């Protein structure tokens, strides 16, 4: 049971990130966005801003963006994180 719901969650997540990796970018820097599953938001690492996802709709109006505390972004190193993200997306793409 747990496994099934986990798989479902993973599917839903990869659905969003697949779309994202295809076309969505940060509305301000036009740089890639990464999905933060913990907070259910989209993060623009280039400028350290997070955008919410509400009811499955990414909210990418510049005014919706929240500036991340520098502590949050440095929690895990930005470079390896974005690289890891890319690998994950490729795996999900098939």
């Amino acid at each position: 049971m747990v496994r099934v719901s986990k798989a479902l969650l993973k599917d839903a997540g990869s659905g969003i990130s697949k779309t994202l990796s295809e076309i969505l970018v940060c509305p301000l820097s036009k740089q890639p966005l990464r999905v933060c599953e913990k907070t259910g938001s989209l993060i623009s690492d280039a400028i350290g801003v997070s955008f919410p996802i509400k009811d499955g709709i990414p909210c990418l109006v510049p005014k919706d963006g929240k500036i991340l505390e520098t502590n949050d972004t440095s929690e895990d190193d930005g470079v390896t994180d974005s690289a890891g993200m890319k690998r994950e997306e490729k795996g999900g793409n098939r």
Partner: protein
Amino acid sequence: MALRLVNSKLRSQILPMLSSTSLLHSHATSFGFKEVSEEEKSRLVGNVFSNVASNYDLMNDLMSGGLHRLWKDRLVSKLNPFPGMKHLDVAGGTGDVAFRILETINSMKRRAIQDSLNDSLHEETRIFICDINPNMLSVGKKRALERGLGEDKSLTWVEGDAEALSFEDNSMDGYTIAFGIRNVTHIEKVLAEAYRVLKPGGRFLCLELSHVEVPLFKDLYDLYSFSVIPALGELVAGDRASYQYLVESIRRFPPQEKFASMIAVAGFQKVEYENLVGGVVAIHSGLKF
């Protein structure tokens, strides 16, 4: 280290944009016939669309006598949608244009399958619906469910600003904006963003209420606009002010030729427009080369 530097540089340039547009230079702009500040305009327009979202379809039918459906059909037929296309419909929260595009493509696909000419090579169709107003988007999502398109993978809903799109450069085959550009604060920014996201060869199409110059018809149209529409808004939607804004904003929007030249300035080629119902609405189009 280098990344950090770039980071902070970008931050200082971009973060001021986060606070509602730019506080550094706040120009006066129009909200209908009123002069308001730019921040005020986006807030006021936001209020209008939050107020009208639930009655939007009904009011469109009543005000245009159902004609808005034909105008949107015309817009989509000019687009020539094709299976596998990547399309962006801006300010299309209620899905009216997006559903038409998707249904056109789906009927083409069905025909292709019947003719057994179906090739599995073509890419997935993707239609992005971008609207700045969450109320309009939730009306659209609800309508998608009602039409059996709720699970359709081709539709992606995004809350976003036409002046700062969240789509990659050169990523779209088509861009449509129907009854939206009149409400933005900076038309030039919207056109520049449309140009940026379109692929070379991509098509820009804009359907907008425009200017009537036919003598007698103009008088009738003015009478209808300023007397009938606000009254209708009050009667049906219980909101006179929003519909007063609607008719005023139409008069403030640049006339056909002027708007066409703005589209050309943004970089588009083969810019042309077609008046419908004597200019009550116009469809402008341009190509990115």
